[in-house]
């Protein structure tokens, strides 16, 4: 599981995840992911290179979204692959964390 960040201006940071966000992947990125989310106002988590997601990975995403809210920020999930999106919808995560297709949609969610 790899994690990279890109500051794209306008208070928006893109956190790109790559690999399997399973138990091992979630344990690996939990700390740095939470540190980055807490430090930024608007966060788009790019899931396009995440090939697998299970509930411990969702726990990481939900914890990040809660931390972002607590910080008066917002977090969205960007471009999940089909099976990953199915997992998100099966757990109804999409009802509490917006799923967006591109950065312009993310900016609308952020109210920019």
């Amino acid at each position, binding site marked *: 599981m790899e994690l990279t960040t890109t500051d794209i201006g306008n208070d928006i940071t893109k956190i790109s995840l790559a690999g399997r966000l*399973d*138990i*091992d992947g979630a344990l690996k990125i939990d700390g740095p992911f939470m540190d980055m989310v807490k430090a930024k106002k608007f966060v788009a988590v790019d899931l396009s290179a995440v090939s*697998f*997601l*299970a*509930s*411990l990975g*969702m*726990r*990481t995403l*939900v*914890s990040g*979204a*809660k931390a972002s*809210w607590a910080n008066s920020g917002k977090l969205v999930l960007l471009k999940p692959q089909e*099976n990953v999106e*199915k*997992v998100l*919808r*099966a*757990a*109804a*995560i999409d*009802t*509490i*964390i917006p799923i967006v297709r591109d950065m312009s949609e993310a900016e609308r969610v952020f109210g920019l």
Partner: protein
Amino acid sequence: MATEQRVHSEWRRDFSGAMTAVSGAVGWVESIASDLHLPDGQSYAMQVCLEELMANVAMHGRSPAAPSAEVEQTDPLKVSVSVNVSSDRIILTVEDNGRPFDISTARPRGVEAGLDSIRPGGLGIGVIRSFADNLKYSRTETGNRVTAEFLR
């Protein structure tokens, strides 16, 4: 001369019930799916269901009140996984020796009340029900048996 057609195959392997064993078990199922050239969606469904079922055993298989070190020495938490493949379905069976938990009737943790009120974790029940075509539970002499069926 008649050609024998293999229409039924079964794999079985035992794992520790610890969280650290989950990735190895999921990788094993992924390799079976790959050997059988199963479609990606079917392989994914098997993997995600196994991950959720084994994570559930690791997190809830023992009573929180149990003296864990002592119990783990005399009766360690164990998981047995079998994959049964026939022409029209794949059956994934997960057996454990943990405390009773009927996942087929357990309520998925709701997120209806919004982000602020949900607790992270425990989201796997809805995922299993979404990816498996059928889900059955039975209590065994030593623990639990969950059968997830995937139609081909």
